[in-house]
Every structure is written in structure tokens, then in C-alpha cells.
């Protein structure tokens, strides 16, 4: 049995409004299902669930505003006996004063061996700890008691609050899909907070490589000639896929710097920096880019761009990018010097693809080129590994048919 909580969709998010439940109590849910929509000052998000199970009674009703971390519902496991500590009663001692499921509601849930009201044990905590937990919005069910008989003490709650604060801080930053015509001040503040932290904490190093794009683009143009207009692939897709393949070669750039160590991530979720027409940027994640072919990636990118602009991003897309790519190729910019999104450890930048003089084998010619840059966290990697990444990137781009 688990708890489905109000997720943190960015370092600056304190509360969220549950707009709508999309599943009924008793319904089977699996990891990745969208079960609710939540509105923050940044827009509307579709919230996914992170475990398989059966949806319990909602502890928060549509329209309620609750703090990050508040339990929204219990996720029940089939066949599991009545749980004691993590019961709805325990959850309700948390930040939100929710009503017990009305007893007259018989419940598909009860059939599924949900903890029925009244059979649940009260969490052992000192009155002072209980009051503090309520004030700070800490769910006592998540606190480990260190007092006699494992009773939760005031200091345990303080510690839990601090841990939560740190966890929230280290969550990848996200900005809002402001759907209105103007940039909301919250978004500028979110960018400011994340970038200040990045500059303060991350010792960046920068590498730059000039990449000959003539043959990859010729290959792409021939490929696009055979495709109907709406199935055409943009050069950015080649760049993204090549980044993903190069990350497989140099995995140390794909992950997070947390608790003074590098956590390499097996999945390659690329945060794709997108400027919004009304100002500001969003970097929602393209998932498992290394496993998509070019057509699938083009579709995924188009879908992500459309949903970003429409303000319909999913919670995971706002939080799980393992690296960021900034492509300023549509502007006149030649070189991108990136600022890493903590806790990520690298950012890859691309400037505009343009014709440049290119010397090769004693000859001077004109080629279409792009400047690729890597901004990386020196705590996690060194320039040697970084340069291997840029070499791998070039290598994969020169074999577009393999991408």
C-alpha cells in the first residue's frame, strides 16, 4: 500500500489545487496512469501515479488546495491485510484536515481489504510533535519515531520537515506553461531561483566543438523528400537523437548530483528547452529518447511542443529530465554557453546551423556547420569525459542512417 501525494512540480511550488480526479475509488491503476489534474500558479498539469494498485477513497476532494506532500489518496495493494500506520486516519493527521470516508459508503474499497475506518491504529506521537506536524504540513505516517517505543518526538518532525525542504530544493526546476498572454511573475522567479542556485553551487566547465552537418543534412533532405509534408523530420531531431546515443557512450553526463555524489540514470530523458511566445522558458522532458526512432522522436517532440504551448504537460515531464538540450538554432546565435539545471549535471547547447569555411585534407570548402557546446558539472565529470561526449556526438551525427 502506498500514498499518492501532491507532487512538487518545481522548487517554488508550495501548494496545488486538485482540479479533478480522473479515476474512481476501487479502480485499478498502474504506474504512469494519469489519475488527476492539478493546478498550480504555473498552469494545469496531468498528474501520474508511480505505483500499481487500486485507488482508495480520495482524501482530498476536487477543488481543494493542499500543500506539496499532502496525501491525496491511498493506493491499495490487492490482498494486503489491513495496514496500521499508513491508514487514512494517519494521513488525515497530515496537512489537510480531510473527512474520514463516510461510514455509510460501503465501498468497493473495503472489499479490496482497504483499511476500514475505525480499525486503524493511531500513530504514536507526542502532542507537541503532532501539533508541529500539522503546522508544518508533515504527514506523521512518513516520520520515523526515535522516542521510547518509537514514539514520534518533536525533533523527528523537525527533521522530516528539513528533509522535505531539501528534497523540494533538489527537485529539477520547472517553469510554468503560462497560457495567458503575459509572462506570470512566478515563472521568472522560478527561473531566477534555479539559475542562481546553479551558478552558486555548480562548478561549470564548458567545451565546444564544431560539427560538420553537411552529410547529415543531405541525408535528411533526401529522407524528407520521400515523406509527405506532415511527416517531415526537423534537423533538431537528428541532434536530439545523437545526444541520446552519445550519452549511452558517456553515461556520466546523464543523471543527477545529489548528496555529494553522481547518480547516473539509466533512462535518457532529455529536457528540451523551449521559449514560450509570451516569454520565459520551459524544459519539459522527452522520455527515453535513445529508444525512439527518428519518426517517433519527431512525433514526440511535436506533441510535447504543442502540449507545452497549450499548458497540458504531465507531472513527470516537469520533473524527470536527466539532462537538458538548448537548441538556439532558430536564432542567429552561434554558440550556447549553458547554465545547468540542478540537480542535472550537464547541458548541451546547439547554435544555428550555418555555412562556414571548412578546411579538410589541405582543401578549403564551404560546409553547413553547427557549434555544439557542453556545459557540465565539474564535480561529476572532467573535461576529458566531456570531450569524449562531444566526439561521440559528432560520430553519431556523421552516421545519420544509424540514428
Amino acid at each position, binding site marked *: 500500500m502506498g500514498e499518492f501525494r501532491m507532487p512538487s512540480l518545481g522548487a517554488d511550488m508550495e501548494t496545488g489545487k486538485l482540479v479533478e480526479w480522473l479515476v474512481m475509488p476501487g479502480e485499478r491503476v498502474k504506474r504512469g496512469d494519469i489519475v488527476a489534474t492539478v493546478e498550480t500558479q504555473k498552469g494545469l498539469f496531468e498528474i501520474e501515479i508511480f505505483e500499481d494498485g487500486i485507488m482508495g477513497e480520495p482524501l482530498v476532494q476536487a477543488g481543494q488546495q493542499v500543500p506539496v506532500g499532502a496525501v491525496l489518496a491511498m493506493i491499495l495493494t490487492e490482498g494486503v491485510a489491513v495496514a496500521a500506520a499508513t491508514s487514512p486516519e494517519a494521513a488525515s493527521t497530515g496537512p489537510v484536515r480531510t473527512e474520514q470516508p463516510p461510514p455509510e459508503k460501503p465501498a468497493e474499497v473495503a472489499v479490496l481489504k482497504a483499511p476500514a475506518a475505525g480499525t486503524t491504529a493511531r500513530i504514536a506521537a507526542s502532542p507537541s510533535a503532532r501539533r508541529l506536524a500539522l503546522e508544518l504540513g508533515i504527514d506523521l505516517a512518513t516520520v520515523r519515531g526515535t522516542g521510547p517505543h518509537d514514539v514520534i518526538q518533536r525533533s523527528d518532525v523537525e527533521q522530516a520537515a528539513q528533509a522535505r525542504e531539501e528534497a523540494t530544493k533538489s527537485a529539477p526546476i520547472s517553469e510554468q506553461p503560462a497560457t495567458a498572454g503575459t509572462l506570470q511573475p512566478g515563472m521568472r522567479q522560478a527561473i531566477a531561483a534555479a539559475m542562481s542556485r546553479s551558478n552558486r553551487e555548480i562548478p561549470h566547465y564548458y567545451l565546444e566543438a564544431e560539427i560538420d552537418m553537411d552529410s547529415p543534412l543531405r541525408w535528411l533532405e533526401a529522407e524528407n523528400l520521400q515523406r509527405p509534408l506532415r511527416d517531415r523530420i*526537423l534537423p533538431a531531431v537528428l541532434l536530439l537523437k545523437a545526444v541520446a546515443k552519445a550519452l549511452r557512450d558517456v553515461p556520466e553526463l546523464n543523471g543527477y548530483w545529489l548528496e555529494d555524489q553522481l547518480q547516473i540514470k539509466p533512462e535518457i530523458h532529455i529536457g528540451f528547452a523551449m521559449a514560450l511566445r509570451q516569454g520565459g522558458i520551459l524544459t519539459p522532458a522527452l522520455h527515453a529518447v535513445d529508444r525512439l526512432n527518428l519518426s517517433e522522436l519527431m512525433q514526440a517532440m511535436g506533441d510535447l511542443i504543442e502540449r507545452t504551448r497549450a499548458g497540458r504537460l504531465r507531472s513527470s515531464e516537469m520533473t524527470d529530465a536527466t539532462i537538458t538540450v538548448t537548441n538556439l538554432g532558430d536564432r542567429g546565435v552561434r554558440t550556447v554557453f549553458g547554465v545547468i539545471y540542478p540537480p542535472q549535471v550537464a547541458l548541451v547547447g546547439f547554435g544555428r546551423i550555418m555555412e562556414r569555411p571548412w578546411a579538410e585534407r589541405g582543401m578549403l570548402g564551404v560546409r553547413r556547420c553547427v557549434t555544439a557546446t557542453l556545459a557540465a558539472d565539474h564535480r561529476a565529470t572532467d573535461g576529458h569525459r566531456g570531450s569524449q561526449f562531444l566526439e561521440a556526438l559528432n560520430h553519431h551525427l556523421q552516421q545519420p542512417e544509424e540514428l
Partner: protein
Amino acid sequence: MTGNELKEIVLSELKKVAPESDPGEVDPNENIREALDIDSFSFLKLLVGIGERTRVEIPEVDYGKVSTLAGMLEYLATRLP
């Protein structure tokens, strides 16, 4: 299709990808992508939209010829089915 109808189509498709802009105000000889801040994804969407309404599919090699409003209209006018 008259020249005015064609212009109407192009302007309304431009408005779709750059909703806050006024495409009619853009100088016909100005680069529309720069003037209206249209990225490559939106530009592709623009061409898909125009293609559906005019039945003209603009290949990538001709992107240079349709970079201005005047160029776009002339290009489409000579290729209408």
C-alpha cells in the same frame, strides 16, 4: 483561387502559428520567420496548414523562396493545382 484568397489563407495560417501577432502588418519583403519569431517547428506547421488548403507541398529545397510574404504568394500562385 484569386490572389486575394491566397493571401487570406497564408495570413490566417500565419496567425495560427503566431497568434499574438498581426501578420498583415509585416512588410511583404521582410523575412516572415524573423519578423514574427516563428521557429522551425511552427514553420513546418505553417507549411502543413498552407499545404492542406492550397494542395501545394513546398519541398525543403524551396524554403529560401518562401521566406517572405511576397515570395510565398508568388511561389504558391504559380503552383496551384
